[in-house]
């Protein structure tokens, strides 16, 4: 475990190096750019696998499983700041997931972005993102974590706005940056408070780190504002950051808009990895959240908040997803909803539950996004699902993999990974002491997820009509219909691999062999057949199976069995409940509410500041400048009419007298002699007369 530990920094450093080289590469070098970025990612994946195998056999107890390497960064006075990296199961499984999904998406991008003229820049940004994300995963210091966190936000901004000539993309990039910044403010405050309270930002540092027993006990014991424990309030502040990044209600508004970026970006950043960083953050600081250094799950108030926020998000976003028509937006809201599930899982069942869903979700959501990208590619940048239909004939590979993704996301029993991870969340919700609420929220979310995914798949692949795909051509004034086509194999192969993973991952997730749970918590457990067949587990499994079946069949009945619909006709749900549907389609008017409150408040503040700037501060400055102008006029008058005038007068009289005197020196030597003679005679006369 120590061998790979020393070289763990290489994992983020390699993509960073690739990004640095690519930023200096000129656009035409496409093959070089793709090879370098994918190569760096593949090597990082290899190193991550090594790190992963090193963590498989932990020696010692719970404390020993965090292998850390801390290095001093800089000193000021007596204190010195240290950063470092940590290798534990949490890091290792994230590393493998990020590098593996990342590599596949990089490869897919080669096909998807083939026509784009800024191909090199795209891979530069992607590598930068991968580097920041991997840095965030291995960080052993909240400060380093925060720095990588912000870098991830930056690369997200750059990639959402990749097609910056589209005003909507530029606006979405700004929105994403600003909304996540609101959460980051809380994160930053929490970090400062944590540093003030414990004097360290290292997570693990041989008993001195802020996530270890001594610091946690101290933080739990201290009471601050409103009778809350210090650990609770710091946890909640840090959770603000996680809410912003992971798109939890009410800071979810940026994530659907982020779909303006290229589809591989949506898959990598806004579905699989970056948005999961918030969940990862909560998992990383879980001992602080739980107020218990051993990482056992408790019912601390911070975790209760996490649970409720997650539960509300899960249902809220699933409801909105039901009424969307943009293929990527449906997936975006589905991502928000699944992130809510993860938060809920962490809050109720410990971080292993949430992380399991994070890992499985990363695979099938990347799969779904890449599949959506393939559909969009095939339909010539059409994203409205109402204008697609019948595509399963044209896109067999995409359809098959998409179906796997859809079934994984919906939680179709037994063979799909999400069934197990979601089931674990529901199971922990069922046994959660404080309330049964999250359990019902989870059930509702699962039902809605199955419903909207079936609806989407029906619209895209089955709707009985010829797709209305058309591209405008230069010669014809009216668009010409074209046949959708399957994507090249460089795009379909990653889809197939991801689909295989979405199925195979279920092996590590079953309650019969809870390997993942045991791996993360550090004690290897053996087959738990008794646990698996306990009545409660069987009950939740049965229940979720029923729910999923109900969701899928309801959607199928509504959309497929009922009379076929024409192209632009109203949605089946819209016919049933037009008011509810329009509310959902407008995303509960959250954007409009923000527009009317926060944005308008901001605009008013800006206007007031502008007014203050123009009249109050501006007037002050004007007054000062007029004063200075007056003084300088006075100065000029003094200079011109007092000093200069006197000087000029003096000079004039000097010149006059000099010109008079200069007549005496006329160069006539004899004239001088005459004067001398005259003077001498006068002198002689004075002497003579004086003698008498």
């Amino acid at each position, binding site marked *: 475990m120590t061998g790979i530990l020393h070289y763990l920094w290489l994992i983020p450093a390699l993509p960073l190096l690739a990004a640095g080289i690519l930023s200096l590469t000129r656009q035409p070098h496409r093959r070089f750019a793709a090879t370098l970025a994918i190569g760096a990612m593949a090597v990082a994946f290899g190193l991550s696998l090594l790190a992963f195998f090193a963590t498989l056999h932990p020696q010692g107890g719970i404390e020993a499983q965090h292998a850390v390497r801390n290095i001093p960064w800089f000193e000021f006075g007596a204190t010195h700041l240290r950063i470092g990296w940590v290798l534990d199961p949490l890091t290792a499984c994230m590393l493998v997931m990020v590098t593996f999904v990342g590599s596949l998406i990089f490869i897919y991008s080669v096909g998807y972005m083939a026509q784009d003229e800024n191909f090199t820049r795209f891979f530069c940004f992607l590598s930068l993102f991968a580097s920041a994300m991997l840095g965030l995963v291995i960080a052993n210091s909240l400060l380093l974590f925060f720095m990588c966190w912000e870098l991830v936000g930056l690369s997200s901004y750059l990639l959402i706005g990749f097609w910056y000539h589209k005003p909507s993309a530029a606006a979405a990039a700004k929105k994403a940056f600003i909304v996540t910044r609101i959460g980051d403010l809380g994160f930053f405050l929490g970090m400062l408070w944590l540093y003030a309270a414990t004097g360290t930002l290292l997570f693990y540092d041989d008993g001195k780190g802020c996530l270890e027993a001594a610091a946690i006990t101290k933080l739990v014991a201290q009471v601050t504002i409103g009778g809350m424990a210090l650990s609770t309030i710091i946890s909640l502040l840090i959770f603000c950051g996680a809410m912003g990044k992971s798109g939890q209600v009410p800071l979810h508004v940026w994530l659907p808009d982020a779909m303006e970026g290229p589809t591989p970006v949506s898959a990598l950043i806004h579905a699989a990895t970056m948005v999961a960083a918030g969940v990862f953050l909560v998992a990383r600081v879980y001992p602080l959240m739980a107020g218990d250094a051993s990482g056992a799950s408790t019912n601390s108030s911070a975790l209760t908040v996490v649970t409720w926020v997650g539960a509300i998000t899960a249902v809220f976003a699933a409801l909105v997803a039901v009424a969307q028509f943009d293929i990527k937006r449906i997936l975006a809201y589905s991502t928000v909803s699944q992130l809510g599930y993860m938060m809920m899982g962490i809050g109720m069942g410990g971080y292993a539950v949430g992380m399991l869903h994070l890992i499985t979700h990363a695979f099938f959501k990347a799969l779904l996004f890449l599949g959506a990208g393939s559909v969009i590619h095939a339909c010539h940048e059409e994203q409205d699902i109402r204008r697609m239909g019948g595509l399963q004939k044209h896109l067999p590979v995409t359809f098959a993999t998409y179906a796997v993704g859809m079934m994984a996301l919906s939680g179709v029993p037994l063979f799909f990974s999400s069934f197990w991870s979601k089931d674990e969340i529901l199971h922990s919700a069922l046994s959660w002491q404080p309330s049964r609420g999250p359990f019902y929220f989870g059930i509702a979310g699962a039902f809605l997820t199955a419903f909207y995914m079936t609806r989407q798949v029906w619209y895209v692949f089955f709707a009985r009509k010829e797709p209305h795909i058309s591209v405008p051509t230069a010669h014809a004034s009216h668009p010409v219909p074209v046949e959708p086509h399957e994507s090249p194999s460089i795009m379909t192969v990653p889809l197939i691999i991801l689909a295989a993973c979405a199925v195979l991952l279920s092996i590590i997730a079953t309650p019969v062999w809870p390997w993942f749970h045991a791996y993360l918590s550090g004690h290897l457990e053996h087959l738990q057949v008794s646990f698996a067949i306990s009545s409660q587990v069987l009950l939740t499994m049965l229940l979720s199976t029923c729910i999923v079946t109900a969701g899928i069949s309801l959607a199928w009945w509504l959309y497929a069995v009922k009379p076929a619909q024409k192209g632009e006709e109203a949605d089946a749900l819209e016919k049933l409940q037009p008011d509810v549907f329009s509310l959902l389609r407008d995303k509960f008017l959250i954007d409009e509410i923000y527009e009317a409150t926060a944005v308008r408040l901001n605009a008013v503040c800006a206007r007031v500041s502008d007014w203050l700037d123009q009249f109050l501060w501006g007037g002050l400055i004007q007054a000062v400048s007029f004063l200075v102008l007056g003084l300088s006029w006075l100065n000029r008058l003094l200079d011109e009419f007092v000093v200069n005038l006197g000087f000029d007068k003096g000079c004039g009289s000097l010149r006059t007298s000099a010109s008079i*005197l200069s007549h005496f*020196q*006329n*160069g*006539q*030597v*004899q004239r001088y002699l005459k004067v001398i*003679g005259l003077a001498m005679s006068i002198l002689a006369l004075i002497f003579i007369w004086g003698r008498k």
Partner: protein
Amino acid sequence: MTPLHYYLIVSALLFAIGFAGALTRRNAILVLIGIELMLNAGNLNFIAFWRYGSHPEHHFTGLMFVIFSIAIAAAEAAVGLALIISIYRHYKTTNLDQVNSMQG
């Protein structure tokens, strides 16, 4: 023995003639001659005062002055003539009225 004031009168005349010559001549060489006359008037005074002073046979002060003065006059005449020659080379004239480039 001729009284002292005869010598003084001769000397004063000599000085006046030399001075007048130095003032009125336009030719630089003639001006130099006038100056020489004035110098010799002074020399004559030295000699006269020495001869009519007390113990002229013991104290040769006046005589020594005159001997030095003549030597200096010779040197001065040489310098003066050299100046005149170089002025002539420069201005192609020895007329002092035209040599007035030192005027203010």
